[in-house]
């Protein structure tokens, strides 16, 4: 194995170790931190963030960023509830929600790459439009709920066969395997990394940047919509701002997991490690009875600490 790969792997293992360490600290300091129910809650919350972070991982590998994720989450959350509440078949609801999300995401990618506009601005603008339209449609008061099946799929108290966890957790593992296979073992996945690593060389290597950007942002929106529907099952009722905490958390998870925002680096396993770290920090600080304000501040400080330890960019001089 090359030194580079070991470096990347070391980062991911490091992040997992940090998560384990945080869990250990929690177990020592807080009674009941490792109780079965607490662990299940932690896993479910982490899994929801993990689903929301898939898209950010893909987009960051590409060298972009997707600020529309929270807005798409809110859009899917509200739209699914509203349509299902109006008596639509849930399969049809999913088809419509995912279809629209994919179109929105594709637009994000196509505009950013096709016109060479920073994706930060495009995804922010498109996200604002989407959220505004949803608000106009529901007049700010979305109604409806998720089908029972979705609720029990993500329920903390749920179980999957003999496993004492809801089906969400094994499903996430399967999804992770699929994502890793797509990234590591398909031409699309390899082109994603290549385009992120050196956009200038991509066209000569028969990579179509416009297509890769469009499909990647579409995938990002798809996973955001999935997270929105799962969150609907989790909270029980629709809420347009349910995605807002995920804006920065997805970015933080990806970066703590070792991806570089300049593109070409990152992995979904790393993001999972980042997700665990963030969820542990949050749970730990809340468990220690920190006020929400202090939790937020400590969260920021820890992200900075972790990223300065191993998320550093190369000096621009070395890129000459």
């Amino acid at each position, binding site marked *: 194995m*090359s030194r*580079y*790969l070991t470096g990347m792997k070391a980062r991911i293992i490091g992040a997992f170790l940090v998560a384990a360490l945080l869990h250990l600290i929690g177990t020592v300091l807080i009674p009941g931190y490792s109780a079965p129910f607490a662990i299940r809650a932690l896993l479910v919350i982490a899994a929801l963030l993990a689903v929301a972070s898939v898209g950010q991982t893909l987009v960051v590998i590409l060298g972009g960023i997707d600020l529309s994720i929270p807005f798409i989450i809110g859009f899917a959350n509200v739209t699914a509830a509203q349509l299902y509440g109006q008596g639509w078949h849930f399969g049809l609801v999913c088809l419509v929600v995912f279809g629209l999300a994919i179109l929105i995401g594709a637009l994000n990618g196509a505009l950013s790459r096709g016109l060479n506009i920073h994706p930060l601005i495009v995804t922010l603008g498109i996200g604002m439009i989407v959220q505004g339209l949803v608000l106009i449609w529901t007049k700010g008061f979305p109604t409806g709920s998720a089908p029972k099946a979705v609720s029990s799929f993500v329920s903390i108290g749920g179980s999957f066969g003999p496993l004492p966890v809801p089906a969400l957790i094994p499903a996430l593992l399967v999804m992770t395997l699929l994502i890793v296979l797509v990234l590591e073992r*398909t031409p699309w996945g*390899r082109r994603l*990394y290549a385009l992120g690593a050196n956009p200038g060389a991509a*066209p000569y290597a028969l990579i179509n940047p416009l297509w890769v950007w469009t499909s990647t942002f579409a995938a990002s929106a798809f996973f955001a919509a999935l997270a929105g529907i799962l969150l609907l099952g989790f909270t029980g009722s629709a809420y347009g701002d349910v995605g807002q905490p995920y804006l920065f958390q997805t970015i933080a998870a990806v970066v703590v997991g070792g991806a570089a925002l300049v593109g070409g680096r990152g992995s979904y396993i790393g993001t999972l490690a980042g997700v665990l770290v963030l969820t542990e920090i949050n749970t730990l600080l809340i468990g220690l009875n920190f006020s929400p304000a202090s939790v937020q501040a400590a969260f920021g400080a820890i992200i900075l600490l972790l990223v300065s330890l191993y998320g550093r960019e190369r000096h621009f001089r070395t890129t000459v």
Partner: protein
Amino acid sequence: MADLSATGLMLRPGARAFSATIGAGEILGLAGLDGHGQDAFLRSLTGLEKSGGEVALNGQRIGSFRDAERARIVYVPRDRRATGIFPGLSILDNFAIATAGRDRRGPLISPAARRARYEIWRERLQIRAPSPEAPITALSGGNQQKVLLARALAREPEVLLLNDPTRGVDVATRHLLYDLFRDLAGEGMVLVILSSEIEEILALCHRVLVFRDHGLAAELSGEAMQTDQVIAAMFGRAG
């Protein structure tokens, strides 16, 4: 047999139009002072540069990069770092990226198939690498260039367009590449090589086009292919 022709090319508005034909098995050299059109000519042959006039391979018009891709006209750019390698990706990835679909067994890339395909070129080009999984940046400039050539050759080109292929490459590797180019031409491939070194062109090419002011200043072959003749044409002193 391949036959690449450029008719009435105008490399820049107002420049002198010219035509050129390259036959199978031929190695054509392009020379000129930097920025005098040889680069634009080479890129025109790939459909990357829209010049007036027409490029065709065996009578098929090449109007875009996509046409060139279909016709298996393969272009290897000059700047390895900016437009060649994918830093951070492995040697295997860098080799296979343009032909990734060929290693697919079902929906997934077969590492074994990819490895086997790489091994053929590793041997032929004598790529010296610690391991195919090592990052491309771990290689010397010469070996990086070999990987990029392997990437291009894996596409089984009819026409291979090389933009200064020996830039920053050590002497031993250069001679290896010269032999390779001669072999490829012997197999019937069309090679067009832009080089900033006249000696290289004289040693390697059957014919040389010398560019000046975005026009064709001279076409030299056989006895006329001499350093002073090429230089004279480059500086616009030839008749």
